[in-house]
Structures are given as C-alpha cells and as structure tokens.
C-alpha cells in the first residue's frame, strides 16, 4: 500500500518547511524574547520576492528595504546639522547595504537572470527586512514585557501582510521549480523539489549548528540567550544580538518560502498558517531548544498529513489541538528551564 508512503513523505516535506520556520522562531525568541507571530510573513516575502524576480519584475521588497532603511536612519538625520560626521558614520552601513540590494537586483534582472541568482537576491533582500523590522518594532520597546512584544509582533504581521497585499495583489503566482521532474520509488512519485526541501532544511540546520558552535557572533548570540544581563556585562550589545537574530530568522524563513513556492504557488496568504503550524512544532521545544523543535515540526508535518487523510475537515483543529498536550507535558517539566514571563 503506497498510501502511507505518500502521506509520510509529504508530511515530512511540509515538516521540513515548518522546520525552517521553527528554527527562526526559536532563534528570535531566545535572543530577543519575542514570540514572533509575524515569522510566517518572512516566508511569504521570500516566496513573493522570488516570484517577482523570476517574472523579471523589480521586487517590491526592494522598495520596502530602501524605505525601511530610511525610516531606521530617520533619527540620525537630525544629526546631519549638528555633527555631520556622526551622521555619515551612522548612514554608511545603510548606504552600503542599499547599494548591495540595488546591485543584486540589477544583476539578477539584467546581467545574470536565473533561478539561483534570483534565490540569492531574494535571500539578501528578505534577510535585510529582518533587522529593519527589529529596529522599527522591537528595539524601541527593548525592556517591555514579553507579552507586549508578542502583541508588537501581531501588529507587525498585520502591517507586513497588508503591505504585501497592496504591493503584490491577491492573485497567486506560479513559481517554476528549480529542477523539474522527480523520481518514482515504490510506486510513489516524489518531486525533486520535495527532495530539495528536505536537503536544504537539513543543510540549514547544520549551518545554524556550525554558526552557533564555531563563530564568535554565534557564541555571542547563544550567550545573549542564556543570560541577557551577563552577556551585556561581557560587552555583547543586546540590540546587536537582536538585529542578527532577526536577520537570520528572516533569511531562514525566506528560504522556506522559496522552497515551498514551487509546490503551492506564491500568494500573500501563505505565511500565516505555516507560521502557526511551525509555532506548534516549536512549542514542543518550549520555543528554546532546537532539536526538540525539529522533532516537533516533524511530528506536526506527519500528523498534518495523516489527519488530512483521516478527517480532512478537522485537519487544522487536530494539529492545533496538539498544543494542549505539549503545554501539559512542558509545564510538567517547567522546573527544568527558566521561563520568561
């Protein structure tokens, strides 16, 4: 019976997409305490930006990045009159990043079109939106309660989704798979895209692991997540850690979006539900542990698939109900980790 093979493979494929988001969620939550409801929107931005670039259009994300960068720079503009040097110092990184974004988009559209280049440009563009959103939404409220930060992220979700609807419109866009076709094994057709999703999700996980274990920035980020105050005393700026984690989170989620787009088309609504399902998976690890979050999303993906088979009308209800036993189980273990209220 190939039915269960189909269900298992497709469940794992969705699970791999959820995994990229769940990793972003954990990353952002540990470094900034933000339970980021808006994480799915980066996935949407990834899918939409890739769709625009492949169509040969200038992606509206470029405009978002440039306008967002200007907004971030706005407080420094006042310094233009009093101390021009300070302004130049503040503006320089913004200008360099804007130039990078513009160059990449130009190259993708006019010099070197193609899926790989488009994906790279998309990755850079969406990664840049992360720190911008962090700068505009979380940083002004750095000492706020975790609950306030959740509400802020709900607001961000609404704004980003609304902007995307205005910029791209509601029509779904087809996105061609990087590699067409697939492989037939045991009577089950598996597209190369699904294989690519699993491989990339695996590589991203390994890359993240290496980043945290081997690089200074990664170690600093880990330190900031273990103890914010302690890290600060060691000279790790929490703003910097926050910006880096938002950037990484945005990039990982965008990767998920680019991978899932060929399977389900790019449309402005894909982010939210995927984000929520990844959230269910991430709660499995209490939003703080990576391996458990990965186990969680694999469970969510497979459960999603099998419950859609067993009772398609109740599929989402079954998946979201999973939060309750997870919460019970986690609160049973609550003594083992320090919760942030």
């Amino acid at each position, binding site marked *: 019976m190939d*039915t269960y093979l189909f269900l298992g493979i497709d469940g794992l494929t969705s699970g791999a997409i959820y995994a990229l988001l769940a990793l972003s969620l954990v990353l952002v939550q540990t470094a900034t305490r933000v339970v980021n409801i808006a994480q799915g929107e980066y996935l949407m931005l990834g899918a939409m930006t890739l769709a625009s670039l492949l169509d040969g259009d200038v992606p509206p994300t470029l405009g978002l990045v440039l306008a967002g960068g200007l907004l971030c720079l706005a407080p420094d503009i006042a310094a233009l009159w009093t101390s021009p040097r300070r302004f130049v110092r503040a503006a320089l990184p913004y200008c360099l990043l804007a130039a990078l974004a513009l160059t990449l988009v130009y190259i993708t559209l006019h010099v070197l079109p193609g899926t790989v280049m488009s994906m790279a440009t998309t990755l850079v563009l969406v990664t840049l939106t992360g720190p911008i959103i962090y700068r505009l939404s979380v940083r002004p409220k750095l000492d706020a309660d975790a609950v306030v930060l959740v509400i802020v992220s709900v607001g961000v979700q609404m704004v980003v989704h609304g902007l995307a609807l205005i910029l791209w419109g509601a029509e779904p866009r087809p996105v061609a798979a990087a590699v067409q076709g697939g492989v037939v094994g045991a009577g089950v057709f598996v597209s190369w895209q699904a294989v690519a999703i699993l491989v990339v999700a695996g590589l991203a996980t390994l890359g993240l692991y290496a980043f945290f274990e081997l690089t200074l920035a990664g170690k600093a980020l880990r330190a900031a997540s273990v103890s914010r105050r302690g890290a600060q005393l060691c000279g790790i700026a929490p703003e910097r850690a926050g910006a880096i984690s938002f950037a990484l989170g945005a990039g990982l989620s965008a990767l998920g979006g680019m991978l899932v787009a060929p399977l389900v088309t790019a449309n402005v609504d894909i982010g939210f539900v995927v984000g929520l399902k990844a959230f269910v998976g991430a709660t499995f690890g209490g939003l703080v542990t990576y391996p458990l979050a990965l186990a969680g999303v694999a469970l969510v993906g497979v459960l999603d*698939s099998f419950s859609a088979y067993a009772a398609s009308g109740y599929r989402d209800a079954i998946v979201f109900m999973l939060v309750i036993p997870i919460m019970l189980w986690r609160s049973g273990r609550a003594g083992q980790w320090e919760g942030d209220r």
Partner: protein
Amino acid sequence: MSSRSGRFLMSALLAATFLALPRPLYAQQSKPELRIGAVLAASGGAASIGTPERNAVALLQERYADADLPFTVKIVLYDDASDPTKSTSAVRRLVQEDKVHIVICCTTTPSSAAVLETLTASGTPAITLAAAASVVEPASSHHEVFKTSATDRLMVARMLEEVGTLGAKRIAVLFADDSYGDSGLAALQSLLPSQPAQLVATERVARNDTNFTPQALRVRQANPDIVYIHTYTPACDLAQEALRRVGYTGPIIQSQGAASAAFLSLGGRGVEGTIVTVAPVLLHDQLPASDPMKAKLDEFVRLYDAKFGAGKADTYSAMGWDPVNLAVKIFGDMVQTGKDVSDLEATRRGLRDGIEATKNYVGVSGVFNFSPTDHVGLLPKGAVLLSTVKDGRFVLLPN
C-alpha cells in the same frame, strides 16, 4: 524643523486641500440623487474576489458621474476587510449616515448573512455578491435582499446535469473548508437525492494548504467515476495536481472558483481537458451572436479592460457590474414615471419592489426574471456555462 519650512509645508498643504475640493458644490442641487452604498472586501481573506468587484463598481462610479441622466448617481464605497463585523458597521453607517437608497453588500457569505438584520430593519434593499444560495433563499425571509449572479446552488445543479450527461455514477468531491465550501456542499447534499449519482467521498481542503495528497489519496481509494473540486485558486490547481500525482486519471469538474486566468496559468498542461463551470463573461467572445447577453458582455469587457488592462475582466468584476446598473435602471424608471424620490423610505421601498418586478433584464451575469419567490431570477443554463480547458484557454461546451 525650522519655522520657515514649517510655514511652507503648511501653505502647500492648504493649497493641496483646496485643489482637492470637489468641483462646484452648487451645480447639482435641482436633480434628484440616487445614493448607492457598496461594502466589498478589498482586503482580507476574500480580497482576490472583492478587489475586481470593487474595480467594477468604481468604474461605474466614474462613468455615472459623467453620464447625462435626469438624476445624479452617488456611490459610496467601503472596504470590510472580509470581516462580517466590519461589514455590519459599514452597512449601518450607509443606512443611517449616508442615507443610501440601496446597498451592494457583501463579497462573502458570512458578511452577507451578518448584515441581513440591519437591512431588514431599515427596509433598505440590497444586492449581495456572495456565492451561497442561503444569502437570498428563501425569499420570504430575505425580503430586501437580491442577488444578480449565479448562486452556488445553480452551479452545483449545472454540474450535476453534466455528471448525468456523462453517465457517471460515483462522484467524489473536494470542498473548500470555508463558507464557500460549506454552502456548496449543502447545495450538493440537497440536490443529490434526486440524482442517479451517488457521493462516494467528501473531502475538505484549505486555501492555504501546503499538502493536498492526503485528500487525493482518500478520493483515489473511493474509486470514483468523476471528481468535483469546489474551491478557489491556488487550491483548485493543487488539488487537481495531487489527484493526478496519486494516479487518478478520470474526469475532473471544477467549480466557478477555478474560472480564472490564474487557474490556467498555474495549472499549465496539467489542467487540459478539465471541465470548468464558468460565468458567461469568460466566454463572451465565444457566445453566438444570437445570445441576448452578447452585446452587454462585449461592452463590459471592452470598458473594463480599457481601464484595468487586457484580459482583466473576469467573473468577479462582472459580479460588481450588474448590481449598480440594475439599481440605476430601476431608479431611472421611477424618476421617469414621475414617482416621488425625495422621501428616503418610500424610495427604498420603490427600488425594492421595482427589482422584484423586473423581468428579462439583461445583465452580464445572466438574464434576470425576479419574482416574489425568486430573488436570483436565473436558470442554471445560461447563467452557468460549462467549458473545457483546451490549449490553455476555456472553450465553451455546447449547452
């Protein structure tokens, strides 16, 4: 900011405000005014449907502003963000503050159901654009509400006729898991007992699912003769793709939710040969010259495409076209026959009665024959056409 630049900004703003003021306010006092209020979902979950509807209404707003009529037409447009709560407050505002004569509302079925009470209480006639038959039926409890496009019930009825023609006995269905799917499924279940065919699988799919294989496997297992898919893009494409992937090779019928250019471009070669229920507007160039709707359809498509781009006229924009035109026509009749249109309530009542008595009104969604028991006034054939996908376009199937 220095005070000088502040003053400059202020004066620029003032100048802009004066420039933006409407043209002479004193010019049009003598003519009676028809006030139409429209509440459509230009954002939110149903935005892909509400936006073209709103475009059509906005286009008519422009055209009637310049039109030479014995009365003026004022159209007030609100966005309900696909949220029934917002629809209700918008309709209340239209009825109480804007004092509109007729309301065009709403894009979605839940919104249309939510505003019913406000409309009934104030005796304001309304034309809904929602798909479900339940928003206008039974007419006795929807005294004020009309619909000027095919209901899902008509669509399902037309689909079942085709199933009968093909001689299929076992139907499997995939319905959207929202209000569109719910009411479609209810229509199917009420129509099915009188049919020789039998339902062998009923699956639900979500618009934003990332995985449609499980439902497709269930359908395959039921071994159907024919599969009916009742959801929107992109889900209707993805569901069909999943069915083919698990090895289902039989015929597939798609609902009107698939009747869009997006369905074709997303589906590519994979949707060739699919039967799709479509609104007349999509096949306007294939209709015979003898078709009564032909002239109206051609005109609508020409005007709409000229404004919003070639090939943009679709099912949903057509749905926004007829309500405004119908209201203007009935109001015009009232003005012409010398009825007093200064009293708000009497005019509302007059419009309502006028619509209900309308016979043989040719619109772009069908030829309407309203009656006290039928507030849709359409027959399955004519309002719902069947097409098949051939070489990347919809081709009319003979009725």
